[in-house]
């Protein structure tokens, strides 16, 4: 037992249970009829059907990207279920009518939805496989004109907003997975913050994949009108299956003049077992448009799950003096692969961006940071600061940093710093010799390493993120 690191990594995944529930699941496979069927099931307006079909036809002409440093067998897109929803017992009017099995499931995941138990300062939209099952505090938020609901519901109640903004930031032809998502997305969250409104609580969406054969394709759209503020958090888990499930989401954010959007992700998908079998393929496109002057979008992500992570939450800084931020902690263990980072596209004058990325690789995993900083020709006085730190635990893990910098304006200023450190057996032994357990040792070192990022998370979740990372490591350091 030479391995203190070994002991730390092998902790079982806590959210791996399957909910036994009757569902409305369409047959596997994808073609135009399936796209129409999804749209029909949701009774969508015509513009949505057209949007989906355009995306589907576009997708057919595209190839999946080969540039990320991840490897996986080709995905058979005909072997995936594109729509699976728990069967509603009857038409729901309030949360009390949500199937108790679903409420129980979310409660087990630490997301109580019922009136008595729910978190007091966080509004939650709970998504189970392809559909949203409940949204809390909807009415209370509506009093201030804030819209927080599932995107399906928004398509019925606020179609003009969806038509105006959907695909604005991530066009259907943006990339292979974005095109697929645009064709088949089944649900997701919609947030609209009116002018000069400070959203009084954290908004949160919790994604749960239950069906072993279904993919999850959710779509999130957040629009912050001039002078508004919103802080949003998404969380995710999935049961443990031997097979890999596809999760291809698209998130679009739009911030107008002086608006601010903080978007945080604590991702804990099932990552596969110790031998790399099973787990979620997480191929996600997230992008924020700082359209207005002085607007600000910040992405904070804590990535611990999924077998493969492919995502680059980005900011397009169009408005003068707008600000983009990206704070990321990505932990990979066993045979997980992560190729993640960001893009900061400076278009407007005096735009600023900050990138802080912390990658932690354990076991046989591979963790790559990939980031683009682009200063456009009109972005006078634009500035970027990037810091990419990697931490390796044990001898078999890998870390890479791929910074891409394109500067087309002489007044731009771009700084990039990178470091790599290693937690070895000797450091762990040093802690142990002082009476500190391996778990405490690893969590102290990791908290220290990630402090810059955790400080950016909403209070409630900073503690959670810290705990999550320690849990992930238990049984793995040695």
């Amino acid at each position, binding site marked *: 037992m030479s391995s203190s690191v070994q002991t730390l990594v092998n902790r079982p995944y806590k959210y791996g249970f399957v909910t036994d529930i009757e569902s409305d699941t369409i047959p596997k496979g994808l073609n135009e009829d399936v796209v129409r069927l999804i749209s029909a099931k949701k009774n969508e307006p015509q513009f949505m059907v057209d949007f989906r079909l355009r995306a589907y036809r576009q997708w057919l002409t595209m190839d999946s990207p080969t540039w990320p440093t991840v490897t996986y067998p080709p995905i058979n897109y005909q072997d995936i279920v594109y729509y699976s929803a728990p069967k509603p017992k009857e038409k729901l009017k309030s949360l009390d009518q949500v199937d108790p099995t679903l409420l129980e499931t979310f409660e087990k995941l630490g997301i109580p939805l019922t009136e008595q138990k729910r978190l007091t300062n966080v509004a939650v939209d709970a998504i189970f496989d392809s559909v949203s099952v409940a949204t809390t505090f909807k009415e209370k938020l509506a009093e201030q004109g804030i819209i927080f609901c599932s995107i399906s519901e928004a398509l019925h109640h606020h179609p003009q907003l969806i038509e105006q903004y959907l695909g604005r930031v991530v066009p259907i032809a943006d990339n292979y997975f974005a095109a697929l998502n645009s064709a088949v997305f089944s649900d997701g969250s919609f947030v609209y913050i009116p002018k000069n409104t400070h959203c009084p609580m954290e908004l949160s969406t919790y994604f749960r994949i239950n069906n072993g054969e279904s993919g999850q394709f959710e779509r999130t759209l957040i629009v912050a009108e001039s002078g508004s503020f919103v802080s949003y958090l998404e969380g995710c888990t999935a049961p443990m299956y031997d097979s890999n499930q596809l999760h291809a989401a698209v998130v679009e954010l739009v911030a107008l003049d002086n608006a601010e959007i903080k978007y945080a992700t604590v991702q804990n998908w099932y990552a596969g077992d110790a031998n790399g079998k099973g787990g979620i393929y997480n191929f996600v496109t997230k992008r924020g448009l700082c359209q207005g002057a002085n607007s600000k979008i910040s992405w904070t992500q804590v990535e611990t799950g999924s077998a493969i992570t492919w995502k680059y939450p980005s900011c397009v800084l169009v408005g003068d003096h707008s600000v983009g931020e990206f704070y990321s902690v990505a932990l990979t263990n066993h045979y997980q692969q992560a190729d993640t980072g960001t893009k900061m596209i400076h278009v407007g004058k005096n735009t600023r961006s900050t990138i802080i990325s912390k990658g932690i690789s354990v076991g046989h995993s591979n963790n790559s940071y990939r980031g683009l900083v682009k200063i456009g020709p009109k972005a006078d006085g634009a500035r970027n600061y990037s810091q990419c730190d990697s931490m390796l635990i044990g001898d078999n893990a890998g870390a890479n940093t791929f910074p891409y910098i394109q500067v087309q304006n002489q007044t731009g200023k771009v700084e990039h710093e990178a470091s790599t450190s290693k937690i070895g057996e000797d*450091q762990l*032994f040093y*802690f142990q*010799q002082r009476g*500190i357990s391996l778990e405490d040792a690893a969590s*102290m*070192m990791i908290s220290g*390493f990630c402090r810059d990022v955790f400080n950016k998370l909403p209070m409630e979740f900073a503690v959670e993120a810290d705990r999550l990372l320690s849990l992930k490591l238990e049984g793995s350091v040695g």
Partner: protein
Amino acid sequence: MTIIDESDVILSVKDLTAEVDGIPILKGLNLEIKRGEIHAIMGPNGSGKSTFSKVLAGHPAYGVTGGTITFLGEDLLALEPQERAISGLFLAFQYPLEIPGVSNLDFLRVAYNSRLKAQGKPELDALDFDDLVRGKLDIVKMDPSFLTRSVNEGFSGGEKKRNEILQMALLEPKLAILDETDSGLDIDALKIVANGVNQLTTPDKAVLMITHYQRLLDYIIPDYVHVMESGRILTTGGKELALELESRGYDWIRDNELVGVAE
């Protein structure tokens, strides 16, 4: 855990054999240390001195292949490294590790509280602990600013060794093993460190020094000096043995041992 041990023996090592990467290093080592005693193990490079200290502390890279170690009446080899530490065994490292991102103060507090927790006692909060640790700084003449820096990061060789003794002062071990604590120290730092150790040595505790040179022993006077060679204790004597070694070299012991004069 309250082991009531009436005997004065703190550490008893019998016929210990151990290996690293399959290569035997310790080849039948015997040693007994009682309360209040200060022992020194000397010996040439590669004799197994540092291996012995790592084996006592339970470093995972060192495999014990035979023999027994009893510490305060318990089978030491059955304990995990942190359990050994909590039961009162302390190793001052030859090369203290740097831990970026973890403040010295946090490190010390978690170490201190881990022991309290294992003993079923209430842990100290940050404020109480701060008072406690500041009271100990003077033992090694350490500036309070070291507490807020990352553990050993950017410390000079002497500062690292002083930090080790500060940890010792805080954890109050029953047996402190000082592995080449004198290496890399100038004479002033050596005096500070030695003075710290002397202040912490009380009749119910013991110290085991591992050293290549005699000079540390000018400041921490041992009751016993053991000479180690090829993974065994070759000979044992009083503090004068160290002086003899210093002037005549290890060959002198080897020659004497062959004719059976030593001891």
